[in-house]
């Protein structure tokens, strides 16, 4: 399944891009994607704790499954206003 993942805030710095499109096998969750993409980061678990996730413009928990064509977002703590 083809998934688009968008990065915001600190993730743009860490990953040096604002989005990627990747092919994944079936039965993946957003957390699976996060763990793979951030695998090399020493503070991956700390980051995960403060991150919110979105799927197709809706806030979802990290154990939310992904489907072909989904757009997922990794969102660090918000600071608008």
């Amino acid at each position, binding site marked *: 399944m083809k998934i688009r993942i968008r990065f*915001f805030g600190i993730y743009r710095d860490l990953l040096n891009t604002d989005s*990627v499109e990747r092919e994944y096998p079936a039965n993946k969750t957003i957390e699976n994607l996060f763990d793979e993409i951030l695998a090399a980061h020493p503070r991956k678990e700390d980051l995960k704790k403060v991150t919110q996730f*979105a799927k197709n413009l809706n806030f979802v928990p990290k154990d939310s499954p992904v489907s072909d064509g989904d757009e997922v*977002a990794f969102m660090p703590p918000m*600071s*608008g*206003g």
Partner: protein
Amino acid sequence: MNRRIELTDQPIDTLAMEKWLSDPSCGALVFFRGTVRHHHEGKEVLALEYSAYAEMAVKTLQEVADEVEKRWPIAKLLICHRIGKLLPENISILIGVASRHRTDAFSACQYAIDNIKERVPIWKREQYRNSSQWVGLPCDSADHSELRS
């Protein structure tokens, strides 16, 4: 309730916004104007860079507006958030509420800014003389090593 929800990369025209918000049936107009401060935690702020997940930010702003509409008898609600690079004293956000009476206007405006700050996918990075920092990110959550995606 009439609403005007905008995400813009242009300076916010406060006079035009106030003109839109004015309503002869409303005795109360309340504004919240957020501006970039010169200093933060003792450091001189040179600029703030705002970025957004635009589609979701607008959607969430509309949801906040829906909630305001359900809770208070407001005639008009304005939310305008600027993104991009802002300098000290630039306006980052303007919220305006017009209602018959001031109590509803104050409460609705407070609700709007509190929820926008907490829920809307917008981020700001503060630029100092020799460094920059994402606001709201616990310092020990990340170093700035570059990873290949």
